[in-house]
């Protein structure tokens, strides 16, 4: 095999290989090829996405750490800060759902830990093929079990997220996990190596053969026999992870700690190089010092291993023993494996002999930018709109509540420990966002995570706008002010111009929406190559958001609270039914969501989306927060997937309270349309006047929908009991 063939086998393109040879002024050896393959992989280098990611706003008055570190950090109050980030583990989960999902949880937890923060919450967004498909159910069950296994044991509550099902994800499920951590400003750490002569430590688990080439595996399409890819998937050990968290938080108190980083994708081939790049130094690694599971491992295997539960530390020379002692107390491995050097290279030594040496600038950030977006693709599929379903509202509502995407996710979240750490005031199902108290403080945190790929398949720009707006709605519904965004962009193969065009459109939509709310993106992740021989996933941006709730006592729940409270709709009062779950569920023909050849963008039968008016959005959100601050609202819920009647039914389930509704417009647009910019709120009769006055003065459109009453939803004499609706809602995911 020639060196070029070997390079291609490592996932490097001929053009990239040429660049490497030209800049090195020689051919790389095999170990060096391995280092380049991982550092230059899409997963680690963002080579197809970075030019577009620059479009996202990242500045804000609370931002302490923006993109570029292991996680973003924003300030709260009293020196408290919150670190957060989302990451994907799609490819591993498609191949080995249990361990793939479990290690996804582990990886993002260590990213938060790298900032010096204690992980306090997890959220996850999962996408699978249709629930009726046995393979999708199997993946779903395995992924949920894997998240439960890892998250429960590691003692970080899983407080939110969502799950949806669509044929578009039949070959490539999505597993996106977000972790939130809490720290004091003075504890903030960075993933940096500095100070010539300072020591590099590896701590946690031993290095084994698992996960070799994990990052390159995540940077190609998922084709053929996926079973053959199983050795690429790492195996997680949440018990070791828990000890690693405690030990690491202990050493974060040591002033001799210069910087630390998780060993995630790329393992020792990428993390030390990235730390050196940030510190403007070089690193020399003595490979024989690394604790191994199998002493016969070659230097190549050691460097490329993605064994879990490991971190790299840079510590002041002379303080090593202090660090080693803490990790050993917790029963973990810890070893000095190298040192900071002045020469800006990543040098790998084996028994004193240099076996690889690459300039840091070439390894980190040296990869050439890839492909430009193509022209606007055809959009014929968007024009194929389906007609009326022909069923009454009660039947339609019951059927929609029972659709796996809309239905209750109790089956999922009851398997996750969501109350450990005793901070979860609003857990899964209680409100639009989870609310976490901060012990000893009046303020609290709100967190949410979600994203709708189908909207982006129909209209990527509008889908991007909605992904941000939806997260904002969830945060403000509980009474919190949104303060920062993290995102995970899940797309198909970026060398396909249509995919890259959608990618850019989604980002432009997200950027415009974030600017409207003056919200910064502080961290994120891109997952490309989510496609098989026959299927691409929908463009799926997942947005995670953190909110600041000034006073925990002001939190607002989702559900109806008292009989006699009045129900109001505020925001945009009319719009299209296009893109809705309703149209998808009531599709008359066997569902074939993906456009045929030449149809381009869109989803057959689902029409077009109602565009979001960002001025109205900003205005509406400000008004809702003002109403909550004045303690006018008994409950608040944003109208999203499933439309108005679904939102009302969800409000009923909290306490089994029904509603008498006075709706004049019973069209499917009004009842089930998913147009943006709407909240359903309830208000006690004594505050009704103050609320309508506020809405009038702010010029926000509103409509009185009815009154909280009885144990059924009732519209114009027709009624359906909450119990019957609940049965439909709660039984869809029973396996």
């Amino acid at each position: 095999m020639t060196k070029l063939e070997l390079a291609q086998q490592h996932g490097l393109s001929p053009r990239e290989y040429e660049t490497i040879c030209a800049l090195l002024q020689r051919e790389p050896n095999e170990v060096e090829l391995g280092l380049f393959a991982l550092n230059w992989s899409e997963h680690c280098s963002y080579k197809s996405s970075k030019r577009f990611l620059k479009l996202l706003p990242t500045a804000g008055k609370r931002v302490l750490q923006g993109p570029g570190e292991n996680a973003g950090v924003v300030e709260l109050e009293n020196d408290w800060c919150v670190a957060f980030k989302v990451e994907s583990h799609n490819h591993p989960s498609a191949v080995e759902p249990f361990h793939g999902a479990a290690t996804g949880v582990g990886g993002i937890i260590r990213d938060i830990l790298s900032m010096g923060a204690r992980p306090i919450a997890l959220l996850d967004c999962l996408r699978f093929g249709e629930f009726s498909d046995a393979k999708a159910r199997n993946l779903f069950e395995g992924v949920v079990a894997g998240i439960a296994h890892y998250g429960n044991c590691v003692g970080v509550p899983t407080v939110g997220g969502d799950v949806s099902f669509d044929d578009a994800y039949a070959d490539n499920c999505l597993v996106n996990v977000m972790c939130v951590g809490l720290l004091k400003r003075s504890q903030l750490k960075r993933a940096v190596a500095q100070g010539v002569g300072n020591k590099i430590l590896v701590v946690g688990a031993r290095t084994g053969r698992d996960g070799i080439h994990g990052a390159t595996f995540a940077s190609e399409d998922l084709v053929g026999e996926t079973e053959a890819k199983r050795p690429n998937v790492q195996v997680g050990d949440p018990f070791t992870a828990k000890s690693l968290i405690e030990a690491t938080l202990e050493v974060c108190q040591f002033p001799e700690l210069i910087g630390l980083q998780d060993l995630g994708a790329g393992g020792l081939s990428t993390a030390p190089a990235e730390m050196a790049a940030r510190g403007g130094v070089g690193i020399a690694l003595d490979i024989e010092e690394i604790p191994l599971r199998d002493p016969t491992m070659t230097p190549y295997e050691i460097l490329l291993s993605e064994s879990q539960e490991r971190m790299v530390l840079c510590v002041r020379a002379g303080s090593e023993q202090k660090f080693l002692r803490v990790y050993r107390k917790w029963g973990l491995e810890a070893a000095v494996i190298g040192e900071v050097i002045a020469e800006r290279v990543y040098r790998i030594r084996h028994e004193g002999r240099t076996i690889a040496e690459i300039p840091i600038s070439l390894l980190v950030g040296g990869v050439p930018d890839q492909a430009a977006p193509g022209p606007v693709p055809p959009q014929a599929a968007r024009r194929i709109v389906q007609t009326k379903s022909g069923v009454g509202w009660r039947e339609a509502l019951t059927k929609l509540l029972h659709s796996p995407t809309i239905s209750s996710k109790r089956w999922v979240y009851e398997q996750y420990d969501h109350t450990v750490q005793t901070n979860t005031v609003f857990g899964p199902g209680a409100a639009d966002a989870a609310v976490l108290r901060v012990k000893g403080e009046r303020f609290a945190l709100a967190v949410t995570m979600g994203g709708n790929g189908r909207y982006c398949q129909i209209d990527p720009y509008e889908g991007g706008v909605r992904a941000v707006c939806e997260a904002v709605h969830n945060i403000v519904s509980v009474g919190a002010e949104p303060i920062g965004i993290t995102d995970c962009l899940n797309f198909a193969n970026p060398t396909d111009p249509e995919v890259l065009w959608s990618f850019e459109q989604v980002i432009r939509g997200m950027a415009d929406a974030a600017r409207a709310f003056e919200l910064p993106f502080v961290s994120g992740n891109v997952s490309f190559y989510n496609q098989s021989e026959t299927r691409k996933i929908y463009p799926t941006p997942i947005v995670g958001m953190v909110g600041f709730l000034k006073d925990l006592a002001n939190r607002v729940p989702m559900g109806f609270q008292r009989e006699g409270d009045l129900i109001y709709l505020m925001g945009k009062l009319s719009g299209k039914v296009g893109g809705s779950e309703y149209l998808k569920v009531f599709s008359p023909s066997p569902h074939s969501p993906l456009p045929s050849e030449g149809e381009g963008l869109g989803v057959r039968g689902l029409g077009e989306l109602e565009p979001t008016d960002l001025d109205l959005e900003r205005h509406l959100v400000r008004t809702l927060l003002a109403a909550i601050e004045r303690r006018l609202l008994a409950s608040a819920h944003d109208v999203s997937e499933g439309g108005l009647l679904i939102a009302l039914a969800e409000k009923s389930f909290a306490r089994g309270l029904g509603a008498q509704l006075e709706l004049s417009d019973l069209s499917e647009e009004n009842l089930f349309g998913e147009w943006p910019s709407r909240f359903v709120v309830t208000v006690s009769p004594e505050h009704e006047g103050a609320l309508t006055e506020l809405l009038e003065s702010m010029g926000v459109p509103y409509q009185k929908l009815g009154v909280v009453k009885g144990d059924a939803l009732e519209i114009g004499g027709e009624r359906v009991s909450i119990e019957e609706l609940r049965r439909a809602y709660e039984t869809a995911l029973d396996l």
Partner: protein
Amino acid sequence: MRAAVVVFPGSNCDHDTYYVLKDLIGIETDLLWYRETNLNRYDLIVLPGGFSYGDYLRAGAIARFAPAVQALPEYIERSRGIVLGICNGFQILTEAGLLPGALTKNISQRFICKTVKLRVENNATPLTHLFGYGEIIELPIAHGEGRYIAPPEILEKLKRNRQILLTYFGENPNGSVENIAGIMNEDGTVFGLMPHPERNSERIFGTGDGLKIFQGLVQEVLV
């Protein structure tokens, strides 16, 4: 009075329990590393929830060999103070033979996290004396191995001696025999609970019933 919350590698409710004892009730409390064997300084020893040693092999099966647990029989024999095991702590106590019976995989074979209703079966114990007899209280559960089982003669004895403290009410979430959620030893000095009182010790989490369990213990020790 002084309390200890034992910290094993893998404990994850240690800080939560410490917070209730130290910050909410205000008694001197130490986080005690599992290698400690000098327990006599303490009036109350809590084995907290979590996944000690990853629950590998079986929940509690490895932690029972930890030095602090090995020192418990002497502590109990001398009636020095009270021992409370919560969730994983309860599992450790049964594995160590300090409480009868065993905690096995939930009948659903899945982890369950939710708030459940419980009935107070005996309110004449240090743990439950602040509740009424037959009172229905609410506490969260979060476990994969919480199904209590015991041979008929043990169950008979538990009932005869009124060692059953709490039973699941309305719905049995894990398949425990006789709906058992919490028990004590014959002397009333060792207690085991599958539900987590520390997770409902403040009104922001619901009824706040859990606080009464800790307050009851503290009052008992102070008397």
